[in-house]
């Protein structure tokens, strides 16, 4: 608590915290000084002159700006005096001189500070009778934001946001006086990943949202508090709906998660929820090779329940599998694995990025912790593309607190522009890179001394050898050793694929040697990557991270569910697809999962399955192969909870409902399907004969009436979700505590043990495949949720293979030229794009491009993010053409 000091406003003394801005202090004592340029999240500027008050300066009353004055003991102000009031009225009159007053067509109308303050503080008349200045209206400053220069009152908020939070000064003030305009620099439209926040910051309608433009009026939308589900950060948003459509997404303040910012994907990419291509009715294919026909829910659910139960009976439960998704809510993920384990009796349940990734289920300690670090190590993760709001916090740490960044990434990502070090590597060299750094650390006597106490030290020193450390490595080691509060963030790319275990071991060795293993955090990729693991949407782990083989944990769930659970671990994502291709997996249930879009291998596997059920929003590539398609609803159309990368369980409440669609929430589909399960239905019948009123045990197990009731059961199934409830979560969610994880499998993740490095046979880069393919996430890809949006084509990543200009010159490739790229498992054709951020000797293709070129070349998701490829000009065969 800061010291309280006494200030005088209008002859009344008030106690306010020392050093606070006068506008903020006045707010505490219920004096509402009007502001435009001042904003609690931006540095004070004093540009708009709206907050003028009088101050006693050595006995003379002077007009000053309240938003730039920090209060101190004994200061005297006048707010309501005639001179101060007159000054504010005059300011407003001047601001309105050239303001077009086209409020009826302005999107800000109804929630506009200029309107509100004109009514509250304005003179009510204008003395200005001349012709207003005319400037550019309808002037796009980016693909997503429209500028109206006439409406602008030059408050600098947009300029300051881009400088202070994004650290991308892409807007500037041009000309002077009444000709002043906000503009971008020639040929460089705004492309910051969180640029949409300037729309909300704008105190007038100068900056408007091109996706939602003219599609809403603030007073007639139904506004529901929810969260964003595009990435793992779980930014708090408000969904504005009208006539059953999602018209606008705006940010909601949650200081712990997103401050009050959201990224452009969260703000602009929501058209999928209302897309006309959405599935609206269940579809059934009566025989293989036939067409999908529309069907009723009863018929479709009974068919799925019977076929899955029949396959489990005849072929054994291991012949049935389910692939969920890390985009499913906790409730959907929990019920999917409960259905598979409890009714089918199979542990074949996983999701993309599930068992194949050696994720640390504890995630990040807390999102805002990154702002306290003085060295942030980004290992194989690019927050600017993967969690853009987290990236703004990292930039804030760099800019405001002088933090340094140590970046290890195959591509020279954007944040390498900051002080620190950048260590490039090619996929497959991760472990070697960390071993090099460990060697560097061990050259320091104090590190060696401290590490000598750790188990496995001798083996590690032995395994590391004594090869020299290069200059970049030495610089990284120096940064690491000079940091007081280092923090290591690593992403799924580092801990998936064949070398996942070795990579993680080498990373953990490095962290242990640097004394920062407690501050080494995994950044989960998707909206509910953490939650899906907590819910047991994994082949070898039950809800609450109880291992399948862990008898007490299993028995606890057996009592809760009233069934016997299978004891053998099931198959993972890739193993299930392999088993399907080999004919061992006979029935597959896909929920929000689309393996067929990941190249020919996935398609072939799905075609071999006897019975394929797809529960989806759209008729995806996989759904086109399905025997039964069940229409699900998006996150905006049902209640659900999601657990973000810092273990925060947050609510996403239902905002809209399409009355013309029969699509149903996932939890309801699972519940109704379970009631039709032959065993459950039979039991209910048998019990019904005995007593009309009493329902069966199994049927009672599946009697959920709402998503909140499912959450109630989750709190009993997963110990860390204990005490949570839909109401208790509130608007800001709750982090599940790590303290409860002591003694559980979670605590085993952080062993303080050094692991000797693996002996790797160094595979020489064979001439046959001279390039390393680098695949990774970009913010605007072509995933299922992006594909349906009109803005996609304007902002999405270029459909191309990026190559270093030096490599392109050697291969004699020109930009835009189609090239054929082939790996051991696949071949694609893409145009060339020259990109200096791509290392020589590597090719960069983002995931989720049309036709899935990266996935095709990698072969499977668990292959990690790298493969060896070769490149040749021209299209080799038209049949394999992509895009």
């Amino acid at each position, binding site marked *: 608590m800061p010291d309280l000091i006494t200030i005088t406003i209008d002859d009344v003394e008030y106690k306010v915290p020392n050093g606070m801005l006068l506008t903020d202090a006045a707010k505490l004592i219920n004096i509402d000084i009007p502001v435009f340029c001042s904003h609690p999240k931006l540095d004070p500027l004093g540009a708009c002159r709206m907050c003028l008050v009088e101050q006693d300066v050595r006995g003379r009353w002077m007009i000053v700006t309240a938003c730039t004055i920090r209060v101190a003991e004994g200061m005297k102000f006048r707010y309501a005096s005639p001179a101060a009031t007159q000054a504010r009225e005059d300011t407003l009159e001047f601001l309105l001189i050239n303001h077009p007053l*086209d409020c*009826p*067509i302005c999107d800000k109308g109804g929630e506009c500070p200029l309107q509100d303050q004109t009514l509250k503080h304005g003179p009510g008349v204008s003395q200005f009778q001349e012709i207003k200045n005319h400037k550019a*209206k*309808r002037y796009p400053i980016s693909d997503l934001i429209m500028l109206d220069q006439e409406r602008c009152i030059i408050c600098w908020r947009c300029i300051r946001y881009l400088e202070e939070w994004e650290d991308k000064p892409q807007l500037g003030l041009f000309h002077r006086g009444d000709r002043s305009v906000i503009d971008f620099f020639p040929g460089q439209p705004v492309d910051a990943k969180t640029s949409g926040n300037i729309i909300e910051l704008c105190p007038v309608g100068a900056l408007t949202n091109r996706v939602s433009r*003219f*599609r809403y*009026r603030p*007073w*007639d939308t139904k506004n529901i508090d929810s969260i964003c589900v595009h990435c793992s950060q779980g930014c708090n948003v408000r969904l504005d709906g009208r006539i059953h459509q999602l018209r606008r997404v705006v940010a909601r303040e949650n200081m712990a998660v997103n401050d009050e910012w959201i990224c452009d994907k969260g703000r602009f990419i929501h058209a999928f929820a209302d897309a006309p291509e959405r599935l609206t009715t269940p579809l059934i294919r009566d025989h293989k090779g036939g067409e999908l026909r529309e069907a009723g829910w009863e018929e479709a659910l009974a068919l799925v329940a019977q076929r899955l139960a029949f396959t489990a009976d005849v072929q054994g439960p291991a012949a049935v599998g389910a692939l969920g998704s890390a985009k499913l809510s906790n409730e959907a993920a929990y019920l999917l694995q409960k259905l598979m384990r409890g009714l089918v009796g199979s542990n074949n349940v996983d999701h993309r990025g599930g068992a194949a990734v050696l994720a640390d289920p504890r995630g990040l300690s807390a999102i805002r912790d990154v702002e306290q670090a003085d060295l942030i190590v980004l290992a194989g993760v690019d927050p600017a593309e993967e969690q853009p709001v987290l990236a703004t916090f990292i930039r804030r740490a760099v800019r405001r607190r002088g933090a340094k960044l140590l970046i290890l990434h195959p591509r020279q990502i954007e944040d390498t522009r900051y002080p620190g070090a950048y260590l490039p590597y090619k996929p497959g060299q991760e472990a070697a890179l960390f071993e090099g750094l460990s060697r560097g650390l061990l050259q320091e006597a104090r590190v060696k001394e401290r590490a000598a106490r750790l188990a496995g030290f001798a083996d590690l020193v032995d395994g590391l050898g004594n090869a020299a450390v290069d200059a970049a490595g030495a610089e990284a080691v120096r940064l690491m050793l000079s940091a007081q509060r280092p923090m290591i963030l690593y992403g799924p790319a580092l801990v998936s694929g064949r070398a996942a275990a070795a990579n993680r071991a080498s990373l953990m060795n490095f962290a242990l040697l640097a004394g920062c293993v407690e501050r080494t955090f995994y950044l989960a990729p998707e909206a509910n990557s953490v939650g899906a693991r907590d819910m047991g949407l994994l082949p070898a782990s039950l809800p609450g991270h109880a291992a399948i083989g862990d008898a007490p944990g299993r028995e606890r769930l057996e009592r809760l569910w009233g069934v016997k659970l299978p004891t053998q671990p099931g198959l993972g994502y890739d193993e299930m697809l392999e088993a399907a291709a080999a004919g061992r997996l006979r029935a597959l249930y896909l929920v929000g999962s689309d393996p067929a879009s990941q190249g020919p291998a996935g398609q072939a596997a799905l075609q071999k399955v006897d019975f394929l059920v797809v529960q989806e929003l759209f008729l995806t590539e996989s759904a086109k192969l399905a025997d039964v398609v069940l229409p699900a609803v998006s996150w905006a159309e049902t209640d659900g909870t999601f657990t973000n990368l810092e273990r925060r369980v947050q609510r996403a409440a239902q905002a809209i409902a399409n009355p013309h669609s029969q699509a149903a929430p996932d939890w309801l589909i699972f519940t109704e399907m379970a009631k039709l399960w032959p065993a459950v239905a039979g039991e209910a019948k048998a019990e019904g004969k005995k007593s009309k009123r009493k329902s069966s045990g199994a049927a009672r197990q599946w009697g959920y009436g709402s998503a909140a009731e499912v959450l109630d059961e989750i709190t009993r199934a997963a110990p860390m979700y204990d005490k949570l409830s839909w109401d208790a979560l509130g608007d800001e969610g709750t982090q599940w505590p790590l303290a409860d994880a002591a003694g559980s499998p979670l605590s085993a993740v952080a062993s303080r043990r050094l692991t000797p490095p693996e002996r790797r046979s160094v595979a020489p880069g064979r001439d046959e495949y001279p390039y390393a393919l680098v695949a990774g996430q970009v913010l605007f890809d072509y995933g299922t949720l992006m594909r349906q949006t009109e803005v996609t084509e304007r902002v999405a990543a270029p459909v191309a293979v990026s190559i270093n200009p030096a490599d392109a010159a050697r291969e004699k490739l020109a930009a835009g030229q189609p090239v054929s790229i082939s790996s051991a498992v696949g071949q694609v054709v893409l145009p060339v794009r020259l990109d200096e951020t791509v290392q020589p000797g590597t090719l960069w293709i983002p995931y989720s491009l049309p036709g899935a070129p990266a996935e095709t070349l990698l072969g499977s998701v668990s292959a990690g993010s790298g493969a060896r490829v070769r490149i040749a000009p021209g299209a080799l065969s038209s049949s394999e053409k992509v895009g």
Partner: protein
Amino acid sequence: MAGLGDVVRGTVQIAEAMGVTLKALATKPVTVEYPDEPIAVFPRYRGRHMLRRYDNGLERCIGCALCEAACPTGAIYVDAAENDPENPVSPGERYAKTYEVNFMRCVFCGDCEEACPVEAVVLTQAFPLPEQERRSMIFVKEQLLEPPDANIAIRPAH
């Protein structure tokens, strides 16, 4: 038994009554042969809505939805969209993609007219609104933009 006085009184009363009848025969009838003839309404009578156009053919309505906000019965529904600059529907950037008035709800109060910043929506004197179905009581923009001849006459102002 009726006396002579009664007969005389009766005759006078009949003659008086017939006098009224005969006088009425000579005056013009007030019945209006609607719909063959127009009905005269007062100049400020508030009837069915019309969306006006400018002389150059552009719609006045800019889709601001202030009429919708002002409507006390929720009878108006407006959905706006952005004008194609090459081929605008209305002047400026915004136009009404959808404009509907539900005449089962409308109370003809004229608040929409008051709220309109561009004098696009006005209440005409047209009162005939019978329809066969409830559904067709919701008038869409095309119907409101070009109202049919309502066959009414305006009474001279007093």
